[in-house]
């Protein structure tokens, strides 16, 4: 990993609806490669992504980001009742591109996720897997410096998951820093260079994915990893 982190959270706390979600969370994410953010439900993973993206403001602490473009892929595909192409192009509005370049990038992104043929079809009629490919195509078209992914393959079948994963790997290879929230530990093992374990709003463990997954040092990380069904099957298979 390079020296300068792309994300630097320092002592971030956030209470939502009277419930403390983040508790003096400190976190660094490498400027290259894929970092996975794992932990039990309610640990604050999705909220952490939202704080990083500026959608939520922390009560205390600081959020420092390297300058650059961010793209956020939400767990539930957020699509407008419009064509697939229009939904990809939506992500390009803030980039102020010339009409022609916007069209080219949209076309390339749809081609990349195998949806070229359906460019003018209604996006909200797509299947779950197609919708998630479409929102990832939108992120891909934006050519972000930082990609935030909130369980991008939850509820997708293996084929769709494979497509999404290959896109993530490709974007990371092209220089996009990726922060991936996932409950699929097999996926984390396949994709992530680094893994951070979140528990009760704090980062309890961080390190190279293999060592975090195979030999967790903290009790919280161990508790999460041993209680996780996909992980046990993955460990048995490997």
């Amino acid at each position, binding site marked *: 990993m390079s020296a300068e982190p792309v994300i630097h959270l320092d002592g971030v706390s956030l209470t939502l609806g009277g419930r403390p979600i983040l508790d003096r969370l400190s976190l660094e994410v490498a400027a290259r490669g894929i970092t996975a953010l794992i932990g039990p439900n309610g640990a604050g993973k999705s909220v952490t992504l939202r704080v990083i993206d500026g959608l939520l403001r922390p009560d205390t602490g600081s959020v420092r980001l390297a300058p650059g473009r961010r793209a956020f892929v939400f767990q539930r595909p*957020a699509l*407008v009742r419009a064509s697939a192409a229009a939904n990809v192009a939506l992500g390009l509005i803030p980039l102020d591109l010339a009409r022609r370049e916007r069209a080219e990038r949209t076309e390339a992104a749809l081609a990349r996720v195998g949806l070229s043929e359906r460019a003018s079809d209604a996006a909200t*009629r797509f299947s779950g897997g197609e919708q998630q490919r479409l929102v990832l195509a939108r992120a891909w078209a934006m050519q972000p410096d930082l990609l935030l992914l909130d369980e991008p393959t939850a509820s997708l079948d293996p084929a769709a998951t494979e497509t999404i994963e290959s896109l993530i790997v490709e974007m990371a290879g092209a220089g996009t820093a990726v922060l991936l929230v996932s409950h699929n530990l097999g996926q984390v093992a396949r994709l992530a260079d680094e893994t951070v374990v979140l528990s009760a709003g704090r980062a309890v463990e961080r390190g190279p994915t293999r060592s975090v997954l195979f030999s967790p040092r903290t009790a919280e990380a161990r508790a999460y990893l041993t209680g996780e069904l996909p992980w046990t099957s993955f460990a048995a298979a490997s």
Partner: protein
Amino acid sequence: MSQTLQETFARLWTLDRDVLAIAWLSLRVSLTAVGIGLLLGVPLGALIAVARFPGRDALVGLLNTFMGLPPVIVGLILYLALSRSGPLGALGLLFTPTAMVAAQAVLATPLVAALTRQVIADAEAHLGEQLRSLRLSAPRRAGVLIYDARFSLFTAALAAFGRAISEIGAVLVVGGNIDGHTRTMTTAISLETQKGDLSLALALGAVLMSLVLAVNAAAAFLRGHAVKAYG
């Protein structure tokens, strides 16, 4: 009673040019008012839905209250403004179709805005985070959400049309029910009823109902087609 009905049907067949002119004026005034109401109310409602500012809740409450604005009050206020000694008296608009359009637009706008706000707030719950994450400005977000919710906004347009075409208080006060100039379906029906020509009043009522039905049917047809393409 049965004689009145018989006469009504007889007169429906022989509706003269005057009645058609009245029907056309009613339709023209109300559709124009709804058009203005949509132009003003949709962006206003959508902006209130996406923007966060102090006094927003109060504004929403006010808007919801204005949905029930009594037409005759709107007519009266506009009458005062447009009367010769009023602030807008110089325009010479009192007792013209333009004044009637203005009055109905005042009725339609808050209705459209309030319904739009609700529809856009629902769309925002689904898409809002994504749009904010894309760092789109509030007007841009409102625009995208209006587009997303465009089929639901049909209902707002129809509600506004229903309110405009069926009201009598506002057009009566600012229009004056002048024969051949500002007489609409509702003011004509009221007048004929007072004169005791019930069969004509009923015939006019049937025409008015047909108009409303035709506009709603046309809207439903258009909406159905649009939804089929991009539901």
